[in-house]
């Protein structure tokens, strides 16, 4: 496996880095969050509404499956 080279680490003594980190945390702290119950309900609704369009979930009839090998016809 290709080895993941370790990145250059910014020294934690670097004041500019500390300022950037605080600024970033301020941005992340300021967002509005919705309740997990609502987030879950919305995801469940999305899955429910789209399940019927999901071929891998519903199964694909052989006649509509572009990957199904068509059997050769034999003329008797």
């Amino acid at each position, binding site marked *: 496996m*290709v080895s*993941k*080279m*370790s*990145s*250059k*680490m*910014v020294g934690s*003594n670097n*004041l500019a880095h*500390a*300022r950037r*980190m*605080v600024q*970033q*945390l*301020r*941005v*992340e*702290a300021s*967002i509005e*969050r*919705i*309740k*997990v*119950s*609502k*987030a*879950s*309900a*919305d*995801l*469940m609704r*999305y*899955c*429910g509404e*789209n*399940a019927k*369009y*999901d*071929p*891998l*979930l519903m199964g*694909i009839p052989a006649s509509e*499956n*572009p*990957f*199904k*090998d068509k059997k050769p016809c034999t003329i008797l």
Partner: protein
Amino acid sequence: MGEMEQMKKEAEALKTQIEAARKAVHDTDMASAASGVAPAPRVQLKTRRNLKGHLAKIYAMHWSTDNRLMVSASQDGKLLIWDSHSGNKVNAVPLKSSWVMTCAYAPSGNLVASGGLDNMCTVYNLKTPVIKTVKELDAHTGYLSCARFLSDTEVLTASGDTTCALWDLETGKQKTVFLNHVGDCMCLSLSPDMNSFVSGACDSLAKLWDIRDGQCKQTFLGHTSDINAISFYPGGNAIITGSDDCTCKMYDLRADQELITYQDAALNSGVTSLALSMSGRLIFAGYDDFNCNIWDSLKGEKVGVLSGHDNRVSCTGVPPDGMCVCTGSWDSFLKIWN
């Protein structure tokens, strides 16, 4: 108190504040919320195509938006373009550097891209009489782990230099550099509305970025090792990640936290890749143990497995019409299942 001390104190206070805010909205968890949902059916998919052609490990694959063509990349030094319906190879693109880690198909179908240990993203035009290199995007100081086209004029890349970048294909220059990860960036996924993307890195964090202003908007914690794979949930409100810690996780963007972990005590191999079925209900996750496990994204249960590869599954992909799933492996084969 020196400014450094002040900064450290404020950082700690902000982290505590974020954790408290996440806890405050954690009124349930996804598994409990989904307990009333009917289980997904047991998923048994058959191998419909076994695509032979590469001579070495396959590292990446990507579907075209036409649901039929796909590009794969192997350390045999080639990109192959396949017609998945016939199983035929449509094109072969020889690579200058065989140490490829990623490939991508442009939404238009006109271009493909590849990159890896050469630190570059090379873009090829498939529609000229002979396939031509149109640009070499050269500015990253680390390996290219992932590339995705927004259009024929813009490409997003993730790199081992810990940055992601948005490139202008006409000038070949970086328009925006996304700085915040402290570990190699390993993967990225574009939001359905194309205004943002998420990245996963070796710092075990996933981050949400605004493409236009370059700002990191949110950071998702929870994994305990490198995040190798990431994907937006259809609908755009959640993301799924896969990690060397052997788990996948779902994070909701609006609740700003992890909703569910997909794990099994018997599974102790890292996750290399993942793809979602069209409704998002099924997660196809490729593992180091040669399998691709299928998870019910709402209930957190394993509902199937794709076995057949003789080596690590390195990449997975579901085409936009959701009609199949493709797995690519270090065994040099691609398989199409449905």
